[in-house]
């Protein structure tokens, strides 16, 4: 089931939450909408679900939301057959886990309703899928956050939705549980293959789980691409800044192909794209002094202060770091191995 959004906008009063956004999600794909809070990602998701109504379109080609090439923009949320998972679970507290999951099957019109035995069977399968067999008689308040969110997911999956929409599903959980559920969600997606759109502000989550990442900022899409593409070939300053830490240098940039030069350009270098050495490696090397070293993790984070009064972070793989014998206050050189420059127009 492919999902397509064509030139959709949404304003709340005078605030533009979504501005002329178009997006296509292919059948069976898991796409992450990634962006800071206020970027419009949740509004976009809620419009796809039908929980929010897009602004009235100015012409025929605008404001369309297509499920498998069918325009559903005028259909209500209960008619769209979407599975929606909320950040704070939104489970029915007065119902047992079993009843929560069965809800979508029980409210179907009599003619489409499954017989009771089949509903029971389906709920049992789903309980197995979320690894909560034996929890059917519990109530939501008796479960942990991670368990509650899995129940919410099973409840959404019960109706065999055309699209699964997840709004910051792991946002309210602690780091360890998040990590586990993230991996579990990816495995689950490989099992059920429902077209899934996930909203998150956590870049690690998006890069790890999604087939494609849609980076959003200020009501617009900044870049769409696979996790590799958005991470290694960021399309804008915003994207490189949002996806992990980055050092910003200003200087002269020379375009290798055309010899075009940019003065005062902003040069973005990720901490792992810098090399640290005791001697200068050429004209690109910058002299700096080590301020602080943080050794915990798979790479050591070395914080240096350059002779241009700039604070820079360099990540050194821990096995290399062990042989470098670096110390605080030591004078070193840092050399960018790779860099990203964003200039709308190069001046000669």
């Amino acid at each position: 089931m492919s999902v397509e959004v064509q030139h959709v906008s949404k304003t709340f009063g005078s605030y533009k939450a979504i501005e002329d956004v178009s997006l296509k999600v292919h059948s069976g794909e898991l796409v992450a909408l990634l962006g800071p809070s206020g970027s419009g990602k949740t509004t976009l998701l809620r419009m796809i679900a039908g929980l929010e109504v897009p602004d009235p379109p100015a012409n025929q080609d605008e404001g369309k939301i297509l499920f498998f090439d069918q325009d559903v923009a005028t259909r209500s949320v209960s008619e769209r057959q979407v599975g929606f998972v909320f950040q704070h679970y939104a489970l029915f507290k007065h119902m047992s886990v079993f009843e929560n999951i069965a809800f979508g099957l029980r409210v179907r019109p009599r003619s489409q309703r499954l017989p009771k035995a089949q509903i029971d069977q389906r709920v049992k399968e789903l309980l197995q899928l979320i690894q909560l067999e034996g929890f059917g008689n519990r109530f939501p308040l008796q479960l942990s956050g991670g368990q509650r969110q899995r129940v919410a997911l099973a409840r959404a999956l019960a109706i065999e939705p055309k699209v699964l929409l997840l709004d910051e599903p792991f946002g309210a959980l602690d780091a360890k549980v998040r990590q586990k559920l993230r991996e579990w969600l990816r495995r689950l997606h490989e099992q059920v293959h429902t077209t899934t759109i996930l909203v998150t502000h956590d870049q690690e989550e998006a890069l790890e789980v999604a087939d494609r990442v849609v980076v959003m900022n200020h009501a617009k899409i900044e870049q769409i691409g696979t996790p590799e593409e958005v991470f290694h070939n960021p399309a804008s300053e915003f994207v490189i800044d949002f996806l992990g830490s980055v050092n910003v240098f200003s200087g002269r940039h020379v375009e290798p192909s055309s010899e075009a030069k940019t003065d005062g350009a902003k040069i973005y270098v990720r901490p792992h794209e810098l090399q640290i050495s005791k001697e200068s490696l050429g004209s690109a090397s910058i002299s700096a002094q080590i301020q602080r070293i943080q050794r915990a993790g798979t790479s050591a984070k070395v914080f240096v202060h350059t002779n241009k009064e700039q604070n820079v972070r360099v990540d050194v793989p821990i096995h290399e770091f062990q042989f470098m014998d670096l110390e605080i206050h030591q004078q070193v050189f840092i050399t960018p191995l790779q860099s990203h420059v964003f200039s709308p127009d190069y001046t000669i």
Partner: protein
Amino acid sequence: MSAMRATQTRRLPGFGLTLGFTLFYVTLMIVIPIAALLFKASSISMQELVETFKTPRVQASLRLTFGASLLAATINTLFGFIVAWTLVRYRFVGRRLIDSLIDLPFAMPTAVSGIALMAIYAPTGIVGKQFLAWGIKTAISPLGVLIALIFIGFPFAVRTMQPAIEELELEAEQASASLGASRFQTFLRVTVPSLIPAALTGFTLALARALGEYGSVIFIAGNLPMRTEIASLLIVSRLDENDIVGACAIAVVMLAATFVLLLAIQGIQWRIERKTGRN
């Protein structure tokens, strides 16, 4: 275990003092008066108690009191829910005014309520006249008692349900809709069940208030023995006749019945809370 308990007590100071005060206060204000009543009633033999209870006049008054109170509390819970829902969910001109009017029956001296009700529902009153034309007596009738009890219990039902409706999770309703439920199904299966604990509390408060009501009822009721005489009034008239034993006997029956009723409602609530893991 006991060591752990001791450290816990120490960590949140004042437990001994506040518990002591609570026990002292509850004893002084509630336990002693009830004990005095029971002590007075203990001078009555069991046989006298049964005899009193068996009198048709006493039985009729108890039936009227409990029957009208239960009915009034039920009506108040249903209509109180509608009013509370309207006040919480919608924004309209005059909302604040209506909101403040709701407390009026609660704040008014009961005798004033009684006179006001009498003025309207008496055979010569605006409403009473209308109903009389249809052959319905709104005063000096059991219906009059019911009207008075609805009047004074209403604020309790509305005020307990309002916060519960305010706290309803909008997302639960949206989740229900996304799962294909119609608006009516969502209301019936998601919204109403979440409000049952609050509705029960409102019902209990309205009921308790109605059972003990005196001032606002006696004018409109007309106090015809066997027909419109409530238990509280019967107790007062027994006292007037210097029949303290008779008054105590009715009082003890009232007390026991009320206690059992409230305990039963509380029991239902405990069960709901335990089952869904709310405590």
